[in-house]
């Protein structure tokens, strides 16, 4: 079979991640076969024959082969696993009892005023006083819709998975605080909470905080800057269960 141009590569070998390598190798293999069978020079193949010979059905077949090996995709968007439960892992998003159990979350027994350390994160804005409130996991659009309809209870500190600003868009300003398990203090959610002047920690590691727990967040900690990230400085704000 003919070699592709990129099959001869002095410095590059393969993708870092196995699923990427599996897909990219499969596409290259497809191209090798189609090009080999076309019996034309590459210059007549690319943007010409290739367009009709390499089809959407071919790409679906590549995916089907990966799934046939038992691989299931990690979901990001809710719609992905909802529409294709056979192709995606269970997101667990609809488990009402869910709570984060990050292994690297700092934890400790009650301090001298009875606060139990249950996590930490990167503070977006340094505030004058720590924040106390009731934790609520916000992981699905169903829950957002419920709050959009009924209103967000007072003193709610939202715990969210992703650093984006779209999931909680219509209700974000009603939270008294936000804890986000991803992102940095420059992520979209951080930008928005800063604009709204809502206390927020990003890149949060939590272990042992459930919905309806009363918590305290150390938003008096220094905010984490781009220089802190670049130089690896750890400026973690603590999260306690009360």
């Amino acid at each position, binding site marked *: 079979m003919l070699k592709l141009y990129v099959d001869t590569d002095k410095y590059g070998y393969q993708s870092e991640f196995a699923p990427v390598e599996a*897909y*990219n190798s499969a596409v290259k293999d497809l*191209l090798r076969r189609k090009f080999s069978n076309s019996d034309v020079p590459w210059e007549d193949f690319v*943007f010409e024959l290739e367009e009709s010979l390499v089809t959407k059905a071919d*790409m679906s077949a590549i995916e089907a082969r990966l799934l046939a090996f038992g691989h299931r995709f990690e979901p990001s968007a809710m719609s992905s696993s909802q529409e294709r439960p056979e192709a995606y892992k269970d997101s667990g998003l609809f488990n009402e009892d869910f709570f984060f159990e990050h292994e690297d979350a700092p934890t400790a027994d009650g301090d001298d005023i009875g606060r139990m350390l249950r996590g930490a994160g990167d503070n977006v804005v340094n505030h004058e006083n720590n924040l106390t409130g009731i934790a609520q996991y916000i992981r699905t659009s169903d829950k957002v819709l419920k709050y959009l309809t009924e209103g967000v209870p007072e003193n709610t500190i939202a715990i969210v998975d992703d650093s984006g600003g779209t999931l909680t868009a219509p209700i974000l300003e009603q939270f008294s605080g936000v804890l986000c398990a991803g992102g940095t203090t420059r992520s979209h959610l951080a930008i928005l909470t800063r604009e709204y002047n809502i206390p927020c920690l990003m890149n949060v590691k939590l272990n042992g905080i459930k919905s309806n727990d009363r918590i305290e967040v150390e938003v008096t900690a220094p905010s984490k800057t781009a220089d802190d990230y670049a130089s690896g400085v750890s400026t973690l704000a603590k999260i306690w269960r009360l």
Partner: protein
Amino acid sequence: MSKPEITYSQLLETNNLIQQNSDETYWLCATRTVQESKIFPVSAYILFSYLNCFYRFPELLKKIEANMSAEEVGDRARNSGIKILAWTIPCFYLLGREMLINWGVIKPTDAVEDVVYVMDFWKRFQLSWHRNNGGLTNKQGGHRAQIFPEQKLQVFHADAFECEVGDDLHTAAQEFMATVAQYGFLVSCESRLTIHNHGPYKISDNREMLIRDFRELSEYDFPWLDDVANDLDYNNLTVAMVVEDTHITLLDDWGSFEAEPELKSEHIKAIGLWTADNLTDGHLPVGMGSPEELTATFKNLTEKVKEATSKLWTQMAGWSRDQQMDAGALNYFACAKELAHIAGCYEMKDWMMIDERAERFRPLLNDEYGNLFLGELVGMITQPSQMAHGYTMAQHTDKPTKGLSFIPYSILKDEPYTPGVGPIRGGVTNLSAKVDRYRTSQGFMTQEQLNKECRSFTMTCCQEKYRLLCADWVKYHYDTELADELFRIEQKNSRNLKDRGAGLTCQDIEHMRLARVEKA
């Protein structure tokens, strides 16, 4: 294959532009982290958009230049505002190329003339847009973007209203900026393309001004804003925000800024609001008659934006994944459609469709592959095409990598190459059909009307008489009638500077402001 008409010099420059974008892409992505959302398959749609850009940009940018040069488009964009294009046009396009190289679908020697043209278009647009500070990118200016000319800055400086934390104007302005930013992220499917900042601009020893553009808020090109944003009277809004006792240290090519000390609401000391589009003669004040009027305007806009946010979120949360993919990909891909509007050649079928050639790859783009492949391409720089020889030390990482592939110089000798991807093909979309209704400063228009109006309208400052009257000319001719005319163009809607002409300096404007404050 005949020898290319491309010269060694052109190829050297093209590869230089590719490398500049490669280095900055790494820096931008490394300092942001991947944006994930439960509503949108973000990484997957980003990759999808890159493919669409690769297959469609060359043809569509040529179509723009058939109507107006990239440089003239840049002139108009500089004066009326634009979405983030500095990074998006070259990098979306080149990352699509990089994906296809790693799939073996193309070689680095394919679409050579396309790559040279897209980079050259981008360079000429950027140099024009950045004309007042002489840079190609914000990065080249030390992560700073001083876009506006003195005459426009003077009006913004003079007319912005003073405010303090806790007063009505400050509160209303802060709430508006938070609400419209929130809405912007939603309109742009979790990207920041609705929001664009430039500056900082020096006001005094302890004051700087930041210009914040919020663009495409109303019914315009995006089908998802039909019937959602029809109550929003302005498609674009520009906030001039004067901050005190903080220094904006960085404003990058994604339009994001950082300040030292950290920018807090108490640093905001003056605020103003304007609007501009391709049919306004410069920026028009919005609610700028008095602080009370501006406060009421902000409050009114905030309510309308909140309502649109709820409607839009409800619509988007009910979308299928294919609809989410299309909207996200089209939002990214269509960043350059602004230029087609300026040139008066925007067509919905060009910019709001996924090209059939990109559509083929949709089944590959599941969430997991999207996250991992994008992560390798822009964050880790670990795809095979990105590996360089062992002596290489990449900017920022010192690793032997190169984020974006060069065009091999061997094509100038005897290595075969292909010129381009050819004409755009048919397009597909899973979104609702776009209503032929576009919000402009001159009322609603159809696509045909809008193109016609854009082609026939030239804002005064871009007319031949004034277009080349730059800051360096003003410096030596400020006492001429022509300089006064130039400044009066921007001053004609100003509350404090109407017909004042070209003689005032930044310091004069600041003294006028201080006198007003003292009097009050």
